[in-house]
């Protein structure tokens, strides 16, 4: 493992422990990476203070995508919130739809038909595959392996075609509604899904050969961004970042929701806890999702309703209460904290995205002493999406 710590003698620590960074000394340079930068994960930025080509301090800046969802939802009825939540996360919007719907159903006491649960699980796994494919392209691209992104984006597009025929939209599906899902699977869906899954598997084999067995990638990813397992609780680390550190933390298994208790799987873990390990966890997790989709299609009931009867949504009121609903998305724990006050509008919705802790405190910790050229790779390895930080 490459030793990154204490490579530079600067900056020196002051007596109180803070860093003695004097911009006028000429030793340091302030460098903004983002928001308009090819090596940034979406529309966000890190304010780097560098000494030579080494980062001595990094501060995450977000808010470029802030639309005030939590405020907007307070003035939308419960059904009107449903189309807006998915916009909180572009690459994997369905988790918002699921968490919101589940929270509303819990507080309103709505029973969801069993088949809807299966279809929801299917959609969440499809979304996970999409998200991971994007990640793989980004992770490879951050280390200069542009071709991986060309392949995975194509594979992801095939999955988007499946999304389109199932949900009627490519990106923002607006399919998981409070009460169930909008519609049943279309005819012949299983067959086309199987073809897509096979294409994805073959793409992944190519990715494995050219990325994971690539000297360049190994050289740069191994040892980069080491996360100590002890930080997992301290920093609220979830998902593949935690699993890459050997902590088998997976909401799907720990607190099974939807139909995960009826599927066979084991959380994927790795112990090296660096960028390479996290990429590998995600690659294997992706393959697991492929398997889960096959299990779902094989086991799900084909008869029955997909939507519960809702009260007239125009005057839908939910009694006072609060709850938290979580799910395991591709980046970690996604959760909705919903407070209702008996009116027709949510009192408060708080969206807890995994990037909130990963891209802020954890990134700022990991980024110290990293070479500038590796900042992008490090950020991607935490798999952050800025809109779920600022909402």
């Amino acid at each position, binding site marked *: 493992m490459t030793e990154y710590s204490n490579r530079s003698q600067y900056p020196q620590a002051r007596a109180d422990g803070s860093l003695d960074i004097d911009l006028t000394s000429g030793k340091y340079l302030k460098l903004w990476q983002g928001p308009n930068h090819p090596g940034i994960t979406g529309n966000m930025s890190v304010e780097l203070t560098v000494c030579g080509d080494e980062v001595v301090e990094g501060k995450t800046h*977000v*808010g470029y995508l*802030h639309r*005030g969802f*939590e*405020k*907007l939802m*307070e*003035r939308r009825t419960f059904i009107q919130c449903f189309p807006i939540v998915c916009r909180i996360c572009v690459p994997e919007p369905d988790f918002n739809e699921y968490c919101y719907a589940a929270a509303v159903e*819990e507080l309103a006491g709505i029973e969801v038909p069993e088949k809807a649960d299966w279809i929801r699980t299917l959609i969440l796994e499809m979304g996970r595959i999409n998200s991971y494919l994007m990640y793989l392209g980004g992770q490879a691209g951050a280390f200069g392996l542009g071709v991986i992104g060309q392949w995975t984006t194509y594979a992801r597009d095939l999955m988007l075609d499946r999304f389109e025929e199932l949900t009627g939209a490519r990106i923002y599906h607006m399919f998981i509604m409070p009460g169930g899902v909008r519609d049943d699977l279309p005819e012949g869906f299983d067959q086309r899904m199987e073809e897509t899954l096979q294409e994805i598997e073959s793409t992944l084999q190519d990715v494995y050969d050219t990325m994971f067995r690539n000297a360049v990638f190994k050289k740069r990813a191994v040892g980069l961004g080491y996360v100590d397992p002890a930080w*997992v*609780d*301290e*920093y*609220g680390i979830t998902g593949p970042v935690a699993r890459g550190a050997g902590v088998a*933390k997976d909401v799907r298994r*720990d*607190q099974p929701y939807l139909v995960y208790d009826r599927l066979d799987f084991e959380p994927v873990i790795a112990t090296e806890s660096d960028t390479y390990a996290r990429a590998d966890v995600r690659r294997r997790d992706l393959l697991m999702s492929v398997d889960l989709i096959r299990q779902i299609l094989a086991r799900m009931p084909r008869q029955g309703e997909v939507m519960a009867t809702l009260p007239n949504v125009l005057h839908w009121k939910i009694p006072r*209460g*609060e*709850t*938290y609903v*979580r799910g395991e998305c591709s980046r970690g*724990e996604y*959760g909705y*904290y919903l*407070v209702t006050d008996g009116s027709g509008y949510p*009192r*408060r919705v*708080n969206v*807890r995205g995994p990037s*909130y*802790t990963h891209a*802020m*405190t*954890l990134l700022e*910790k990991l980024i110290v002493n990293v070479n500038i050229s590796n900042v992008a790779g490090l950020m991607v390895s935490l798999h952050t999406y800025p809109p779920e930080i*600022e909402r």
Partner: protein
Amino acid sequence: METLYARLKEPFGLTDWVLQKPDLCFVTVAREQLRPLLLHLRDLEGFTHLVLLTAVDWIEEDRFQLTYLLHDRAKARDIGVRLMLPREDASMDSIHELWPTAATYQRELREMFGIDFPGSPRVNEDFILEGWADLPPYRRDFDTLQYAHEAYAERAGRETRDPARHMKEQLYPDGGQDD
């Protein structure tokens, strides 16, 4: 969960216990008991993971509710600790030494609700908003629609009619009785 509550109720003066679902409960605690309670939960009860820290504005009751949601990984359960703060000049003790991530949450609360957390790192820096000069936007008394109307130009030419009123104008404009 029940036994946990029974054990902690007396020493920490917990109230308003709600078992929302088998693995999630909410309790309310007084301000001075919060830190001991969080420490106890983290170090002795296994609630090692701070899931979220957020606020709810109960403007009618003139107070903020802070919610600290903690997760126990081993037993797969959560506890939400509620704390009520007066709305006026709201300020709360920072818990960033217990969980470093709390600093981010506290920065957001400072910006979006105007709740101060003295001592929390970078708490007064802009976090999400930039150059914001109005009421903290997540407060209930901040009207986002009105603000949007006043601050940002909108495209002209939108109008709408109410069906019932339009029918009245068309079919019985004098408001008279008809069939």
